[in-house]
């Protein structure tokens, strides 16, 4: 019951935040001097054509009506224009890209599997290696293991993704010829190729991010192992491995979980650099295209989609934290 209330409060809060972000994003992009009607007006752009284009897109309406239409579209879907030229944008409609002639929702959904494959695989990899490395060095600060892990992680923190990615392609793709150098094969088409094409992007992302996780886990672990309850656990006669995992790691991992959720949420919204380096057509590539051709509807929809992912992952973290750490619920 308390858990339900806790989760309910968090979800409600998330909906309010999403609404606010929608309004803000909409305002920022539509108050820009760029006129969407002008951009897709075609040539020659007579005043009559321009008026028609604006009417078609709905940009002739006052700003607040545009916003209401937009919000309504998310829930009910909307139509642009009328008669034979009308286009339908099915709910949830986050806008319509007139340049690509597709609803933003469809565009995002078509690219999402690529980005999700990269992001989730990389996240699992960096979480496991980062936490393992952090625990190993946090257990014995100053030891050889600790120094080794911290040295590698310094390299990881300071190396940019594109550099690591290019070096990985050079070594494993061209010199050793173990792995493909780029591109994406859907899982349904060929699972083995899917895996082979993703391995390098995963490792590249994981190497640079795991470093941060190793440092965070190490710090948390050192702090936790100094707590009174660790001494209590040892005084009970527990094996050291159980002391470290059940009493140490279980508490040290809490902040790591929080950071992980946020990182994953951000990453799902587009892995721009990695997609570029490994020539994959994911969300990041879609966004870059959208920005370069000033496809405002697409950029707005995309921004909202990213915000949505981050907020959802935030809610998930909160609920997970509530389960893992009973104290978190007390402040619900």
């Amino acid at each position, binding site marked *: 019951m308390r858990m339900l209330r806790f989760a309910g409060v968090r979800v409600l809060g998330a909906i309010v935040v999403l609404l606010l972000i929608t309004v803000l994003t909409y305002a920022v992009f539509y108050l820009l001097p760029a006129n969407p009607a002008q951009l897709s007006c075609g040539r020659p752009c007579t005043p009559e054509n321009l008026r028609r284009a604006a009417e078609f897109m709905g940009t002739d309406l006052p700003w607040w009506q545009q916003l209401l239409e937009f919000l309504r579209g998310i829930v009910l879907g909307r139509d642009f224009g009328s008669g034979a030229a009308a286009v339908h944008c099915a709910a949830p409609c986050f806008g319509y890209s007139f340049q690509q002639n597709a609803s933003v929702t469809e565009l995002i959904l078509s690219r999402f599997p690529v980005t999700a494959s990269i992001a989730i695989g990389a996240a699992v990899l960096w979480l496991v290696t980062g936490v393992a490395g952090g625990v190993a060095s946090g257990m014995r600060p100053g030891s050889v293991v600790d120094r080794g892990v911290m040295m590698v992680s310094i390299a990881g923190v300071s190396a940019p993704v594109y550099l690591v990615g290019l070096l990985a392609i050079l070594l494993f793709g061209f010199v050793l010829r173990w792995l493909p150098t780029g591109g994406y094969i859907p899982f349904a088409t060929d699972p083995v190729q899917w895996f082979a094409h993703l391995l390098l992007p995963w490792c590249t992302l994981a190497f640079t991010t795991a470093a941060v996780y190793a440092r965070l886990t190490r710090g948390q672990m050192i702090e936790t192992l100094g707590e009174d309850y660790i001494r*209590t656990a*040892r005084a009970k*006669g527990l094996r050291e491995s159980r002391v470290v995992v059940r009493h140490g790691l279980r508490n040290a991992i*809490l902040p790591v979980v929080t950071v992980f959720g946020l990182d994953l949420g951000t990453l799902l919204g587009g892995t721009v650099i990695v997609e570029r380096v490994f020539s994959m057509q994911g969300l990041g590539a879609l966004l870059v295209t959208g920005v370069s051709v000033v496809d405002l509807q697409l950029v707005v929809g995309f921004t909202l989609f990213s915000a949505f992912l981050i907020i959802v992952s935030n809610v998930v973290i909160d609920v997970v934290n509530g389960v893992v750490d009973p104290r978190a619920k*007390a402040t619900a």
Partner: protein
Amino acid sequence: MTEIETRDVLAVNALSVAFADRDAPTAPPRTVVDGVDFHLGHGRVLALVGESGSGKSVTAMSVLGLLPANARVEGSIRLEGRELVGADAATVRAVRGGRIGTIFQEPMSAFNPVLTLGAQIAEAIVTHHPRLRRREVRARSLELLESVGIAEPLRIARSHPHELSGGQLQRSMIAMAISSDPIALIADEPTTALDVTVQAGILDLIRSLRDDRGTAVLLITHDMGVVADLADDVVVMRSGHVEERESSPALFAAPQAGYTRELLRAVPRLGETAARLRSSEPLPAELSAAAEVRAARIEYGGGWGRPAVVAVESATFAIRPGRTLGLVGESGSGKSTLGRAFAGLVPVRSGEVLVGGIDLARASRRELRELRSAIGYVFQDPASSLDPRWTVGDAIAEPLRLGSDKTPRERRARVLELLDAVRLSESHLERFPHELSGGQRQRVAIARAIALHPSLLIADEPTSALDVSVQARVLDLLADLQREFGFACLFVSHDLAVVQELAHEVAVMRAGRIVELGPTERVLSAPDSPYTRRLLAAAPVADPAQQAARRRAWRGLAAEADPAAGDGDAA
């Protein structure tokens, strides 16, 4: 010799512990325990007594092998005749929680916050009885909780540590410690973090373990009252050495070592008129109050449909210049909140808090800032209330910089004057807080608090973090300064004996209300409120015979009181 050994549960001989410096491995190790001997007999309570740095906790932890990796242990520790120094890991693990149970100081932090108490107790049982079935482990956990006086074992077992009170947690800790029927218990300051009425219950529980189960107890404490209450034998330690080893009645009746006598003399005693007060002259009664609170109500939280928590309700009293009012109560009574209200640090919902005739609740921001220079505040733990990166000189000069228009030269002169007033020398000026002892740090905090000649000094548990001998000197200092500067003092404390040393008047608080207010002597010798009587009876005194009588009286009073509040264990 053989005969003694068979009766001894624990025999420690020529124990020395030294810590190697991690940063300088070649430097000679620092010896913190040096040649300690003692024998703990079956069904006896042996108290290791000493001030901070005496090595008493290190000695106890070396029995369990729970010292940091850089510790070097020499000598012999025999448990039931078996040597523990240098024993292999499996042997030591079987002793920990198996033959020796341990109770730690801070029950709030000694339990893992993310696991239920039931899970943590079960873990202790399973570790030493791996063959037990899950159902049996559960039954055993509940049975243990019940045996330590927990009224609803099922609810407690399902709770997480943050949902329970200190008393409930410490009882659960004891349940966990005795889960494998250990032959000995190590109790490391088991009641130091607890309220005095809860402490009495826990001491009773430990005593019953000794009497009913024949468990031997190694008690580590700095509190002579606790020693008098519980111990059969006493070992007095000081900087790693044993100063005196004696049976408890003999030690209190005729302490041999000079250090033991000094220690006992420093213990504040209830019921003895304090020398510090006698020397202060009576003040004319018509003098107007320096600080006053009238029908004040303080609330926390609330809003968004949740009810506010009332921290203080209808509090009324006044402190005249040159006088000290002791504000006494247990944790959660609202005494510190009320203290903070006098500094304008918490908002007052209704009523008035007046300092120098100005109501803090209604004062403008500017008035409040000016008023703050008339208020000095000394906090409990000087280690955390002083900025670690500021020198002593900077710390004392800060209020002068903010609240006066003295030139740097004048400030320096005043800082030296203040250092002298708190009995520190000019050589301390450039030191940092970590280079000072606890007592010296608190002197710096006091110098800071009186820098602007405050009319009101608020001292919130100023000696709770200090050793007894240091406490006595800090109390002396506060009394002297008050005589010299004539400020009114609000002295917040949980310890009646300490309040008696310094306060002209006492206000006793419980659950946000002042239950008794009057001259110190009257309140402590003939209290009107039953709560004050229970509080007085629960505080152990440093005299075994007297304490035994007080214990009986306390049991009577505790039984009289409603059971929920009586043992103070209700959450």
